[in-house]
């Protein structure tokens, strides 16, 4: 899976939770879920579950704590897929 593929799949997952559509349009690896996309922090757990379903992986509490922006999500998902 290329980086672009991964970003695009993550983008589809976070789309329903995004409260700032402008920031979402210009999403990059550095985009922060809460600070930039204004996602309600309570919804981060829903995003985790959606990522688990999409990639058929399991994310632990420690993974979740780190998964605050696009880049960390990509790192963690990529690592899990290699396990």
């Amino acid at each position: 899976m290329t980086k672009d593929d991964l970003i695009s799949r993550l983008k589809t997952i976070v789309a329903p939770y995004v409260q700032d559509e402008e920031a979402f349009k210009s999403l990059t690896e550095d985009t922060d879920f809460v600070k930039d996309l204004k996602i309600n922090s309570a919804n981060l757990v829903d995003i985790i579950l959606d990522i688990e379903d999409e990639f058929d992986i399991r994310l632990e509490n420690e993974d979740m704590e780190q998964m605050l922006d696009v880049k960390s999500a990509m790192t963690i998902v990529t690592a899990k897929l290699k396990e």
Partner: protein
Amino acid sequence: MKKRVVITGLGVVAPNGVGLSAFTKALKEGTSGITFHKALKDLNFSCQIGGVPKISEVLKAQYFTELQLRGFNSSGILYGCIAGIDAWEDAGFQTDSDSPLDYDTGLIFGTGTSGVEKFREAIYKLDDGQVRRLGSTVVLQTMASGVSAYLSGMLGIGNQVTTNSSACTTGTEALIMGFDRIQNGKSKRMLVGSCSDHGPYLWGGFDAMRVMTYKHNDSPEAGSRPMSATASGFVPGSGAGALVLESLESALERGAKIYAEVLGGEINSGGQRHGGTLTAPNAEAVQRCIKKAIDNSGIEPKEIDVINGHLTATSKDVLEIENWTKALDRKGEAFPYINSTKSLIGHCLAAAGAIECVASIIQLKSQFLAPNINCEDLHPEIINLIHAECIPTRSQEINIDIVAKASFGFGDVNACVLFKRFKA
């Protein structure tokens, strides 16, 4: 000097009509909202009929965002938010997620239990060891105050925001509590109401108690028979009612439409003494509640034109009528008109009081009496107490100045409120 309180907005989600105009039409025409539910039959319920409001996906999307609807499975909150938003907009306010915070408006929105289907979903996952996969909204959808939490955020309400719960008196109690708060100057407006989930997981306990009718599974619309000789238990319903209460000065100041004035009310409990039990009313306390409500309203019992009773279609209907005759000291032909909205919508449980308060206000404002259906065969003991003409079976246009509404609930709790036609 206590403030006068008026009603400036109404919203309703009822089994026989969603929205004010559909519900008004159903009341005028005596349309039943009771239907057969296969899900109840499949689960071996004795009573397989019930009242469930019809809400399309399109309508849902007008009140909730896509995000709010993700994993959403709480019919009571759904009904409550629709009724609450409708009442708010009917009162002339905007629903806008960026609206300024309004510290002068409070919210008391009651329920019995919240999100029972969501709770069931969660329990299945949890017992399967999947607690981590419940998602973020189980708490919000299943906490009793879920409906208040959703609504206050949608509307930007900044005064007291809470949920009351007192079984089938819940909605009427919420109204009286909101009234008290405005009367005492603690808020200018209160959005009050109540809601109830639908479905087997809420209704099952009542079916087990054999208090719901099992005799009309083939004739659902004839099932809810308050005051009838052949009443054989209530028909479960669901939905929500909502009312915007406002101080008279605030309503006049902003030129709001005024439906009626809330004259006063009373809430009490029979304490499960003197014949009262967890499920049966203490008659003395019921009469006291009605009398006190009349006293608090500054009127005489003879001024009451119409009663909207609790009248569920159980053997307790006779006792309720007897309690009214004693509390008002009026019987036979001198008794006011009385109607039971439950003949049309069933017993909407925690939502009943609010939906029936809305029904009372609609009849008062539009000056008509909704028909009592399914009581052509009045209970003989009721005819011994009051004249049959006090129980209209057809829609009638009449002059109504004062309506008394009462609700009673499990736990031996009572609430009674008096509404007066508002003349500017």
